């Protein structure tokens, strides 16, 4: 009993890190430009397929494919920004919600036609290691380590680089940033690109241990919403903790009741936090 508990706890926590960076992409975009990116889920799914085809098709090792996927994600995000979001960035939120959802429809429509909805999985088995009594799957452990690395990287990027400072300046006050010479359109495009990069990387990591289809993204998008709200929308660091909380819930709930109750708890929690503490459990900005 105790073993099973510890095991599902560890599994949940490791998964939580990966969910955390997915949510980080969503909440970065929300925090900087006040856009809820409804194409997030399909971008996660594209990340899964990118790693899959680079590995199965070209024989590139999944973790190197992940780097290429990150670059592709960044470029793709910038393109999406200029085509779909830039024109409506100052319009009421309905416009940006629908603009990003239209991108979601296009990706899913074309993706379903190309990839069909047959489940895929990446045939990668790195074994597992034993910590005392508990066994941890290597792919999950590596995914968690990479996720933490990505999160730290993002934090350092935002804190110490010039583009990172620009992003923080635009977050604080877009008009004032423009006055002092920050190129806000490029900064917003970069932010959207980074958000897409995070989505694609998290998708690629999830694909190394879970089977997926082009439609799998929706589940992870909804999880990202829950995590984003837990950690505070617009608070990327909070997302990592939000991810851990969600991972814990997913690890612990099945011990007490049937697994199918997990989403009920998650979404009830989601709505409650929106109502009680819309800035998340850790305060967040504003």
């Amino acid at each position, binding site marked *: 009993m105790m073993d099973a508990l510890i095991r599902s706890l560890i599994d949940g926590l490791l998964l939580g890190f990966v969910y955390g960076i997915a949510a980080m992409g969503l909440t970065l975009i929300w925090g900087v430009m006040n856009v*809820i990116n409804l194409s997030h889920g399909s971008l996660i799914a594209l990340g899964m397929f990118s790693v899959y085809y680079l590995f199965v098709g070209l024989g590139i090792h999944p973790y190197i494919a992940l780097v290429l996927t990150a670059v592709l994600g960044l470029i793709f995000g910038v393109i999406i920004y200029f085509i779909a979001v830039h024109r409506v960035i100052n319009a*009421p939120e309905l*416009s940006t919600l629908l603009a990003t959802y239209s991108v979601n429809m*296009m990706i899913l*429509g*074309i993706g*379903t036609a190309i990839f069909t909805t047959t489940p895929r999985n990446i045939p990668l088995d790195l074994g597992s290691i034993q910590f005392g009594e508990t066994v941890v799957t290597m792919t999950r452990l590596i995914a968690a380590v990479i996720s933490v690395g990505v999160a730290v990287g993002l934090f350092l990027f935002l804190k110490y680089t010039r583009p990172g400072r620009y992003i923080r300046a635009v977050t604080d006050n877009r008009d004032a940033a423009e006055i002092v010479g920050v190129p806000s359109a490029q900064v917003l495009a970069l932010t959207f690109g980074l958000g897409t990069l995070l989505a694609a990387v998290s998708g690629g990591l999830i694909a190394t241990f879970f089977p997926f289809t082009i439609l799998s993204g929706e589940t992870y998008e909804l999880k990202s919403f829950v995590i984003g709200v837990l950690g505070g929308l617009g608070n990327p660091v909070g997302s990592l903790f939000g991810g851990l909380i969600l991972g814990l819930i997913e690890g612990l709930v099945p011990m007490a009741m049937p697994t*199918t109750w997990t989403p009920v708890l998650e*979404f*009830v929690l989601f709505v409650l936090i929106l109502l009680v503490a819309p800035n998340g459990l850790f305060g967040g900005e504003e």
Partner: protein
Amino acid sequence: MSKKFFQHASLWLSLGTVLVIGLWPIVTHNALNRETAFTVLSAVALASSLNILLGYTGYVSFGHVVFFGFGGYVGFYTINVLGWNIWMAMLAGGLAAALLAYLLGVAILRLRGAYFALATIGINEAVRAFINNFAPFGGPTGMTLNFKIYKAYGGAMHALQLVFYIMVGLTIIVTILSYWVRTSKFGLGLLAIREDEDAAEVMGVITPSAKNWAFVLSAIIPGMVGAIYFFKNGTIEPGLAFPLRTSIEMIVMIMLGGQGTVLGPILGAAGYETMRDYLLVSPLFKNLQLAISGVLLLLIVLFIPRGLVGWLRQRYPKVRRWLI
């Protein structure tokens, strides 16, 4: 001519459009046309209902299908388990949806903008996940009607006919409701909330209660549509009852025709459904139907955010008198 006359002209135009769709299969005596018209009318009813909240009040519900699904489940349960007839089941579905909207409204209508939209997505998913676990409603496998139930209506053929007439009736009711809200003092309060909620409050609109009633009004008809839709369908399960995509399609229809107008959602729903039918049967576009709808949505959002009716009103100021 008085202002009232022109306002009425707008109502007749909307009702006329609904009647043309409703009479088309009756005149052509074609069962296939009737199925198409049923789909179009249910889309019109759902879009016009959501328009009361989204178009008039300015609150974007991304999970409005929850009322369709919940009303559908309650209606289905009363027919299948309690043995009620379709009329009572429809009322039960509508009332259940209205009650759900009232209770939810008290809690979530305090949220504004994107937070409200997120909360509605969360609620739809929470209700779907709950019903997935709720044994009396059949859990993940849902419920299936006993075929004998249609006997009370003179067989399945007659039941389908009856359901279609009910659908026409519901769509007429929702059109009148939408027109009444748009032209009433209550509706004026909603429009004021849409433009500036704080200013509306200062000017004496009791915003919490107005918003809540708008939410309830926008939920009743979807609940009734859900009840008859699943009675016709003969089976119900969580995936069919709460698809997030349908919620967003309702918004697309409203945007296409013009949000905040009476005629807009009717034209938008009819246009969208017709286009989708065409794309679905065309061998070239069948697989890309979703992508093409996405392109269409993006073009509307970027270039004609007011929709067809809104664009006409802006472009030709003279039509504003009779086109609302």
